[in-house]
């Protein structure tokens, strides 16, 4: 690659400026969180006497354990159920190519661009009718449905790429369709599945609209949905609000930093396929 020196240096400088701009709002939260809880803080300063106690206060006042538990409960149902349903349907559409699979595929694509806001009003009354309004199920079931088009299309794309010869060979050897699916298709699908799992986890954990509308008690929401509760709780204290918000985003950032290669890969593929 031919790149001259000035360009290389200019590129570095611009990149560093952008990186700083990306990080500043987060650092700024930390700077606010460390200032005395009962003051109105000013701008980006590193306090001489950092109030780490604010994190403890925010943690207790915000019922963070309970919130994390509630989020985890929602994720633990949404992600595995979505994965199972999407894998089965993706296999049927991509590998079995059943009659009508083209129609099914288009039927799922239809759901891909529907904004959640367009469905939120009827969802509210549907969930109310089911008697699960204000429980975590009010978010779990609709989210599985709303993520389904993307998940199915994602898994279909994987199964389309698996050579048909593999299935034929298995069938010649007398394997039933289910055996073939279990012992040949599933192991091959592991990378596609784990990327999808990462995406679904992130989307569920960060989901805001559904929990805010469908669960009135903020403590039963996802952590993201509970941020509004923090805003109410700490309306008088910017330091505590920022401490609370940081407590909520740090676990995600940690998980991201640990699995960052998989995360970036998954998000990029997710963007292209979505």
């Amino acid at each position, binding site marked *: *690659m031919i790149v001259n020196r000035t*360009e*290389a240096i200019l*590129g570095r400088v*611009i*990149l560093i400026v*952008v*990186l700083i*701009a*990306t990080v500043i*709002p*987060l650092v*700024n939260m930390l700077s606010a969180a460390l200032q005395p809880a009962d003051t*109105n803080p000013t*701008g980006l300063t590193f306090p001489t006497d950092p109030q780490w106690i604010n994190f403890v206060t925010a943690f207790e006042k915000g019922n963070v354990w309970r919130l994390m538990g509630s989020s985890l409960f929602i994720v633990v149902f949404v992600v595995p159920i979505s994965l199972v349903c999407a894998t*089965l*349907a993706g*296999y049927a559409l991509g590998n*079995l190519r*059943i*009659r*009508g699979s083209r129609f099914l595929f288009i039927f799922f694509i239809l*759901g891909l*661009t*529907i*904004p959640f*806001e*367009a469905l939120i*009003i*009827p969802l509210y*009354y*549907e969930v109310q009718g089911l008697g699960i309004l204000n429980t975590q199920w009010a978010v779990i*079931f*609709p989210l599985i*449905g*709303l993520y*389904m*088009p993307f998940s*199915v299309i994602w898994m279909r794309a994987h199964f389309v790429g698996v050579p048909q010869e593999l299935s034929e060979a298995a069938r010649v050897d007398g394997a039933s369709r289910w055996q073939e699916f279990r012992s040949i298709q599933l192991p091959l699908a592991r990378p596609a599945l784990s990327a999808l799992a990462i995406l679904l986890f*992130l989307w569920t954990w*960060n989901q*805001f*609209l559904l929990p805010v*509308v469908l669960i009135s008690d903020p403590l039963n929401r996802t952590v*993201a949905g509970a*941020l*509004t509760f923090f805003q109410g709780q700490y309306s008088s204290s*910017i330091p505590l609000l920022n401490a609370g*918000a940081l407590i909520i*985003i740090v676990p*995600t950032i940690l998980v991201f*930093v640990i699995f*960052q290669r998989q*995360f*970036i890969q998954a*998000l*990029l593929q997710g*963007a*292209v396929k*979505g």
Partner: protein
Amino acid sequence: MTSPIAPRRAAAKAAARRGTLSGWMFSVPALIFYTGFVIYPLVLGIQYSFYRWNGVGPSEFVGLKNYIRVFTDPTLLGSIGNAFVLIAFFTLIPVSAGLVLATLIRSMKPGPFSNLSQTILFLPQIIPLAAAGIAWSWMYAQTGAINQVLNAIGLGSLARPWLGDFQTALPAVGLIGSWVLTGLCTVLFLTGIGKIDQSLYEAVRLDGASWWREFITITIPGLRQEIAVLVTITIIAALSSFDIIYTTTLGGPGRSTLVPGISIYRIGFTQSNVGLASAFGIVLMILVLACVLPIQRLARASSK
């Protein structure tokens, strides 16, 4: 006289039918969730949109009245207008900034610095949008970092509560979207540039082409697919924005940052006008489709 093939063919057909049947069985769980929680509410929403209903009492059929109101009520039209303004910040800025950044840093050798910058650029993509809203409310506050910087460089007269000012609230909220989406665009473009044939770059360089010419003749055409994808995603994000606005301005001051998502929420749950809110939801869905379909078609046509 029956040919010996006939029964075999019938058996094959039966097997195929069984195959189709078991194949459909595989799709049933996905179909149940999808029809139950996407298609059914969609149909329900269409039905509500023709009624006047407060959510509890009796409902009254009003025909297209709700739709007419969506397109004539200045508040609702205003919120659609704001959503289109947001496209400039959610789509135009991140996609063009991403293109430029990706071109500039493509020269970077893979190493700890390039990995670190990828990680950092991706951070806004990981945290909940609602948290981004909280972080930026504080950046924009009267005593926040933006005004602090302005004061420090002698532009203190420009300092203001950015989210509370009628003139600046919408761009301020839009820039939060730019902050969230620029990293995604940059990283996706970087991987796209990696796939462009490097000899093309060398060829134009040998012809003495400028940086700009190279950008226009090779980079942009080479990234067509990525551009189409990102424009689609970011337009959807702009038109259906909710989280950021909810945690920063709630649509205010006045109606200056009101967007369809917030309008639907307010009309449906605060004002209990379920019919109108549902109609607005359907309109929003059609708007998104009307913006996304042409882009998809264009991308497909140009890739042929």
